[in-house]
């Protein structure tokens, strides 16, 4: 049997739940501080990630997920009370139920400590929980170009004047 048969639904569910948990708990505080112009992480965004990421190559059966939270937090303005928050989430995969536990310590409105308890039992689930563990702490903060000695900057392709003018025309029309 091709192990990749199980990859898609397993990864779909794991990714969905892991991102929802971490994003919901983390995004409100860190993200609001770092970048005012964007919206805080919301479950819908996390869901979107997974939906966009999955090619429709396998027949996936949908499964429900359950979340239990030991400590409640009121996210009235994206600020969480100091304390330790623990969430254990179970999710269903075609190979059985998996779980992951996340601990976050919030102090002074920011996350001062975070840890995961990887509880996967299947090989694929272990892989994805490990991938998540390797990467979940990386939230970027941009640095100004002026302070760096860069040969080049790589981003979205630069546009020509004609293109910029066309966009400006449309923006002006939209405002009138």
């Amino acid at each position, binding site marked *: 049997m091709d192990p990749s048969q199980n990859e898609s639904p397993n990864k779909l569910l794991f990714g969905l739940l892991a991102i929802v948990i971490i994003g919901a708990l983390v*995004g409100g505080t860190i993200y609001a501080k770092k970048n005012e112009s964007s919206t805080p992480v919301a479950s819908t965004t996390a869901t979107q990630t997974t939906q966009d990421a999955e090619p429709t190559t396998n027949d996936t059966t949908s499964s429900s997920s359950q979340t239990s939270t030991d400590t409640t937090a009121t996210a009235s303005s994206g600020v969480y009370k100091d304390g330790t928050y623990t969430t254990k989430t179970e999710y269903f995969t075609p190979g059985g139920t998996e779980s992951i536990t996340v601990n976050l310590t919030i102090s002074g409105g920011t996350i001062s400590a975070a840890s995961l308890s990887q509880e996967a039992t299947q090989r694929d689930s272990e892989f994805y929980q490990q991938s998540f563990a390797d990467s979940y702490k990386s939230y970027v903060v941009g640095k100004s170009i002026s302070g760096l000695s860069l040969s080049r900057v790589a981003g979205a392709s630069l546009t020509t004047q004609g293109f910029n003018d066309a966009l400006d025309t449309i923006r002006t029309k939209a405002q009138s």
Partner: protein
Amino acid sequence: MTHSTPSAQKPNPKIWQFEAIGTKWRIDAAADAAQMQVLKQRVHDRIEAFDQAYSRFRNDSLVHSMSLAAGTYTLPQDAQPLFALYEQLYGLTGGLVTPLIGQTLADAGYDADYRFTERPMASPPRWEDVLHWDGDRQLSLDEPALLDFGAAGKGYLIDLLTDCMQQMKITEYCIDGSGDLRHVGSDPMLIGLEDPRDEGLVIGTVTLQNASLCASSGARRAWQGRHHIMNPQTLSSPDAVIATWVITSEARIADGLATALFFVEPEILQRSFAFAYIILYSDGRVRTSQHDGIHIYSGGEVA
């Protein structure tokens, strides 16, 4: 006692900047003035030939004629690697990366006239239903189709331009097609990864030598709630991934993979390609492969 032969000395790098295929280019080459003269002509001609085949923005292109009529078309001699890559990406992404996205993009507003006014859009047809490629130079269309090669075309053109460099025996150069570049030579480049949320910032750097780096983001070609990368099934632009960068030897592949990473996880693409990547998500989280030359500025690190 050592001595060096004059022919071993490399000319000082020349910088040549120009516009082509809708963006800004910069070519740095260790070439003398006479070589640069010849190089400029060859590069110009090569880009023009490429554009005349693959551009959906001009009325005299092969792509334009394909958008008018079904039939069998003869592709240019250089078509095979480009189509082969699209075939692979189409398969790996379940059709989310497709050359048939051209009409959808045009209807969304990104048309040959840059109207940026949305018209009713439809999902493109499946490749297997309308497009039959013989693996070489014959392409038949069961119906007129507007093809778009934005996902990998510029990267492929960059690779083709390295042929010009090799023919002229230029051994140190960087071909930068804006966001996509390929370096050959002995001095590594330090390249900043532009923050799509703020072009004055970079989220990290890549040290690049004898490799290609392609960036993809919706930061510039954006209008009315969408940008130039479109999901053919949802008819909207992905918004969870906001920027990607891919490092690999060929710019064609780096370019195509950078687009594909807006739609699928890197593990899926790693089944067929070896590459390094950086993915920036809308929540500020970044994901990178293990690669010595990548350095990301991480602000949210916890103990």
